[in-house]
């Protein structure tokens, strides 16, 4: 592959052509640059923590610790692409965590209402109320044209107060075991353990979680088949694609990363339940933003709201839905968070909105709206998560950690803008 790249890149005329290897590489650099940065940061911490970062247990932890940020970052991406902001998500997630705790543990229902304390019923109620909170804020933003910054700032204060109030200032817990599974559980091994190195004296045993491995492999194969099919369909319709070498390299690298990650998870306890939820949501949001008309319209209203309205897009209703979705996701995140701590505390969720917003911006979204990708937001969240995790393992003080994260946010946005101006 390298022998092919070198001579082409050397001639500037070729470089200008959009589909040459060099051109395609450049086009991809911004998209995959972020992933590269994440990998570099991980390697850096692997080195500074003396190999702790890539321990299966720690990788699993990184997923668990950041799941609620990622869940909210998905919704925040839509909000920011549409040209808005939601400052209330931290407080709303805290409030929903509190509500979940009160429903399942705190409130004593009369027998005929006892079903409300059922974890599934309570979970659904929480999701609906989260969506309703988002919808209410979205209604004010969309139909009364109050700036989202103000509406959600108010929401942040209101729900911070409400969680304090319904918890009466106390921590409430523990949750029923079923509810804890949301954050603490792993998928059952319906295939059975695969023993690579049996336990014997002297060597570490190595047993893999069969179902996790199977799911990982199926996912990778599916992904590759899908991209081959897309490419084949483009070619069949007479469209050029990126050079095959690049296409192959991209798929191989990503497949290798996913398989590596799967292997790591499988050598611990397997796939966490929450990662399944996250995986489905991420796939859903990628599809929503890239393929659904709903997603396309969000980019359109973020890019030029007036032109979007004059193209027949119901901008108000779209904005309303976006905030409702954000509310539901904040509710889900609140439950994941509460289940992880196994109690609801009055301070839960506070300040999370900042991490979520930072993740989306590190992921390349524009504060002016109209620009941003799901993959970017997810990687942005992981960059923040790995930074937290790595620095904690290294024993760096919280004060310094905050400063470093601030610098990373600034640097990410700076390089993104620099790149755009250069192009």
């Amino acid at each position: 592959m390298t022998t092919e790249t070198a001579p082409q890149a050397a001639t500037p005329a070729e470089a200008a052509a959009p589909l040459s290897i060099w051109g395609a590489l450049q086009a991809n650099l911004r998209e995959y640059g972020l992933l590269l940065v994440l990998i570099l940061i991980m390697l850096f911490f692997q080195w500074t923590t003396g190999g702790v970062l890539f321990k299966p247990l720690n990788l699993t932890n990184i997923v668990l610790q950041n799941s609620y940020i990622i869940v909210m970052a998905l919704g925040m991406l839509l909000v920011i692409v549409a040209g808005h902001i939601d400052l209330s998500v931290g407080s709303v997630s805290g409030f929903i965590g509190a509500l979940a705790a009160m429903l399942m543990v705190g409130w004593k229902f009369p027998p005929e209402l006892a079903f409300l304390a059922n974890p599934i019923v309570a979970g659904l109620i929480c999701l609906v109320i989260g969506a309703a909170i988002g919808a209410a804020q979205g209604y004010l933003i969309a139909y009364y044209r109050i700036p989202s910054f103000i509406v959600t700032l108010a929401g942040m204060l209101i729900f911070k107060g409400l969680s304090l109030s319904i918890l009466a200032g106390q921590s409430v817990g523990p949750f029923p075991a079923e509810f804890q599974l949301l954050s603490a559980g792993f998928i059952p091994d319906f295939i059975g353990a695969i023993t690579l190195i049996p336990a014997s004296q002297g060597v570490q045993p190595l047993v893999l979680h069969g179902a996790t491995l199977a799911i990982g492999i199926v996912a990778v194969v599916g992904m590759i088949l899908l991209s081959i099919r897309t490419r084949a369909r483009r070619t069949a319709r007479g469209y050029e694609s990126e050079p095959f070498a690049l296409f192959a390299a991209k798929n191989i690298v990503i497949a290798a990363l996913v398989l590596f990650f799967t292997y790591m998870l499988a050598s611990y306890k397997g796939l966490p339940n929450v990662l399944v939820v996250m995986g489905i949501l991420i796939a859903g949001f990628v599809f929503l933003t890239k393929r659904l008309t709903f997603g396309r319209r969000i980019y359109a209203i973020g890019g030029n709201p007036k032109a979007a309205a004059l193209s027949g897009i119901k901008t108000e209703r779209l904005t309303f839905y976006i905030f409702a979705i954000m509310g539901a996701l904040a509710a889900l995140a609140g439950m994941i968070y509460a289940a992880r701590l196994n109690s609801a505390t009055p301070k839960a969720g506070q300040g999370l909105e900042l991490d979520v917003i930072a993740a989306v911006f590190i992921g390349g979204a524009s504060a002016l709206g109209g620009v941003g990708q799901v993959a970017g937001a997810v990687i942005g969240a992981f960059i923040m998560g790995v930074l937290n995790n790595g620095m904690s393992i290294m024993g760096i003080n919280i004060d310094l950690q905050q400063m470093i994260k601030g610098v990373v946010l600034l640097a990410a946005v700076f390089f993104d803008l620099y790149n755009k101006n250069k192009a």
Partner: protein
Amino acid sequence: MTDTIPEMRDTILQMRDITKTFPGVKALQNVNLDVKAGEIHAIVGENGAGKSTLMKVLSGVYPHGSYEGQIIYNGEECAFRSIRDSEHKGIVIIHQELALVPLLSIAENIYLGNERANAGIVDWDETREGARAVLRKVGLNEDPDTLVTNIGTGKQQLVEIAKALSKEVKLLILDEPTASLSEKDSAALLDLLLGFKAQGISCILISHKLNEVSKVSDRITVIRDGRTIETLNKADITEDRIITSMVGRPLEDRYPARTPEIGEVVFEVKNWSVYHPQHRDRQVIKGIDLNVRKGEVVGIAGLMGSGRTEFAMSLFGKSYGVKVTGEVLLHGKKVDTSTVEKAVSHGIAYATEDRKTFGLNLIDHIKHNTTLANLWGVSRWGVIDDLAELDVANDYRKKTNIRSSSVYQTVGNLSGGNQQKVVLSKWLFANPEVLILDEPTRGIDVGAKYEIYSIINQLAAQGKAILVISSEMPELLGITDRVYVMNEGRLVGEMPTAEASQEKIMRAIVRAEGKVAS
């Protein structure tokens, strides 16, 4: 006039072998341009030929180093690193899209970035005085404290020029200054340029209005596909000569021929009234009745500010104004057009005159802009078929002859005329039954105009009803079957195009104004 200009005047500007590339596009290739002191030098060329790019190179918008070639100004080689550098030397550019801040006053805009101030404290007296002085020079009789948003486009253009004058301009660059001006305002502006010439200020003028260009310019440089074709001297300038040079072949007719096949009334508006969105008791549109037949192209003539755009936008989902009343009928049946979505679903489309504000998502590419008004056309169950969309975008790119590296070029990077074509593509793809085109050829070159007229003809031949708003009367007379004349929110005349003339239209307007006055 030509005789008064000595043939061997000093050359004040030479641009030599200018080459400028963007990723995937070579916008300029070895372009040469000479401008003499005190001349009006026009640059003409098709959309995307590189005219604006050349001027951005000259004025330092694209800094030294981002292009190849030399700029020699007043005998010295210049390496402008920003607009400020070129302004210091007296080169001032007025861009294709006006760059005024709407909510600042005229005076504030004139001295924006160049404030009359002592130690950072603005001297308001001097600001107003200075503003008044330059406003006088451009013949604009407005209070310097008026907000820019409250004056019309023609006056805004004059404010831009006043701003240039406040900077001691020696070489004034105007990129399509008359594109959105009425004929009267255009004439006034061109007179102003002739006045500047008498004072020794040189002008570079970019325009697609060839009649204006041939009237005022001393020389014309033609650019095609990023290359200099030739420079014409005053004696050689005729419109046909320019067109041949621009397009590469003579253009037989400005308007494609067609034989109209006109059917029954398709679109009808009855007693349409609209009030101003802010001054709610000012009636902007006053009881308009109009109809368009199947296969008919109907024009609305009128002066700038006669309410044509307001009328069209209020029809289209009440996108303008308040207290909108009246009826819209399609095939004799009353339809609800109270939201854009409903209007579109009934097959009504409105292609805006203001592409940047209302027409395009500038940060997205051609493909997404083309399909935005008709996403149903490329999707099923709300899922977009990416390849179908690509087909559509490529198809319309070809049909409207959009010059771009591909359909993935960001619309904001297209030349002005090509942006206009994207707006048209978008509404053509929506496949409406009634198409309202508001200044469809603003900023479009002669060749492309012809193509757009051909598209309009095809649509009419397919039996669509087409309503064209245009401030260029020759265009209305060239392509329509019937013309309405609008004045101050009222229809004041209607005539078959065969019997119409510019004089008749103007007479209808003048008569109406007389009535209002008496």
